[in-house]
């Protein structure tokens, strides 16, 4: 399937960098174009890691919620079970994104109980949060401009 998604992203980046950027001289458009090219680079480099990250995030978040189960309301447990039990295609990226968002929302709902106990679920949650910062496929580097007038 050529051009592959990776090849298309690389081609778009090259076109912008080689055909468009040399003609863009105004400061603001030039800076934005540079950030677009950088974003395409990041997307090309990290796109393949996204499904695996989402699957890991879903499974680990579900593990935290399982550990918190004894402290949760029946209503919340039912919502967690429904979210975990919903069938899904592991290759369907949109479905993975929706499932991840659902479970992270349930983690927010469970958090008061987790914080009140400060037990095993709390330890698992902190471990999830910390490992998640290492595994997250994209970086948000706050990089201020060097100088301005």
């Amino acid at each position: 399937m050529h051009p592959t998604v990776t090849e298309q992203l690389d081609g778009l980046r090259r076109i912008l960098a080689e055909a468009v950027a040399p003609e863009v001289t105004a400061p603001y458009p030039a800076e934005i174009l540079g950030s677009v090219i950088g974003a395409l680079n990041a997307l090309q480099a990290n796109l393949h890691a996204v499904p695996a990250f989402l699957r890991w995030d879903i499974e680990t978040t579900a593990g935290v919620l399982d550990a918190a189960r004894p402290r949760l309301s029946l209503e919340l447990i039912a919502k967690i079970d429904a979210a975990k039990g919903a069938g899904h295609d592991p290759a369907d990226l949109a479905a993975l994104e929706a499932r991840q968002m659902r479970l992270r929302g349930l983690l927010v709902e469970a958090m008061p109980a987790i914080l009140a106990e400060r037990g095993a679920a709390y330890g698992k949650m902190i471990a999830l949060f910390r490992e998640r910062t290492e595994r997250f496929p994209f970086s948000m580097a706050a990089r201020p401009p060097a100088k301005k007038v």
Partner: protein
Amino acid sequence: MAETIEHDLTAWLADALGDPGVRIDRLRRTSVGYSRENWVFDAVWQADGVAHAQAFIARRDPAGSVLETDRRLEFAILSALSDTNVPVPRVRWLDADGARLGRPAIVMDLADGICDYMALNGDRPLDRRLAIAHRLYDRLADIHQLDWRTLGLDKVLDDPGNRAAPAALDYWEAELRRVQLEPEPELELVIAWLRERAPENAAVTLVHGDFKPGNVLMQGDEVTLVLDWETAHLGDPLEDIGWVTNPLRAGEHRIPGAWEPSDLIERWSARTGLAADPAAVRWWNVLANFKQAMTVLTGKHAFADGRFDRILHEPVAIYRLLFNLIEA
């Protein structure tokens, strides 16, 4: 867009300066600034038969931003500070509702100088960088010593009393609810930590809100203007101390081994006569990073709405620092 801005600015200045023949030259949007559009230009006009020329900067609200603030407050604060010992840009005109430029804007005199984010860690010898640090953070102390009631700022800004910390947390939590695109359990954990430990403030002062080397204008080694007052408010001066001692921005605010947070706080306390309780400073360090994360989330929200031109991702590096600060 530049053509429309030039037309609208010319009409605005013609009215403001009383010269229908006013001319605008060299209008350009500067590339820096994530929160406001900055348009710089030269204006030439006649008044009482005398020709005048002045460089100006128009700061207009963008369609989308990492920060949503009020130009009216910025204009009022800059006007109030114009005759104090805190040097600020001279503000000229306010377009509070966007009637002139389509979105709210202020016009200020453009001053000579540079903003150098890395002034404390650039090429200068250590003794000069240390002297700059003293001048820079003395300006912060001067801000905290302003008599804001005499300046009339109590008429435009809310006084939080001794509840500056919970008031700030309420504000930023409301901002999170407004802009979040998805659940943010990491920030919920931080909110819970902050809620349990919010300190009472001993003083209420004007707080700059984003004080840093990149937000002052310098000529040589001198600090000539304090800029970017869009997040200024009344609150706990330790909010600014927590901001400038934030480990995330250490590269901008510290000179390793020569200008550490303890040096900054000691000098600030000596100049202001105010104490800096370490637990309160840590609380404001945590809130500083919560605010940093919020700028990213605000930018993500604006990007998703098609109002912001940069792609931002989950601020995981800030989360990591937050977990360390709250010892989670």
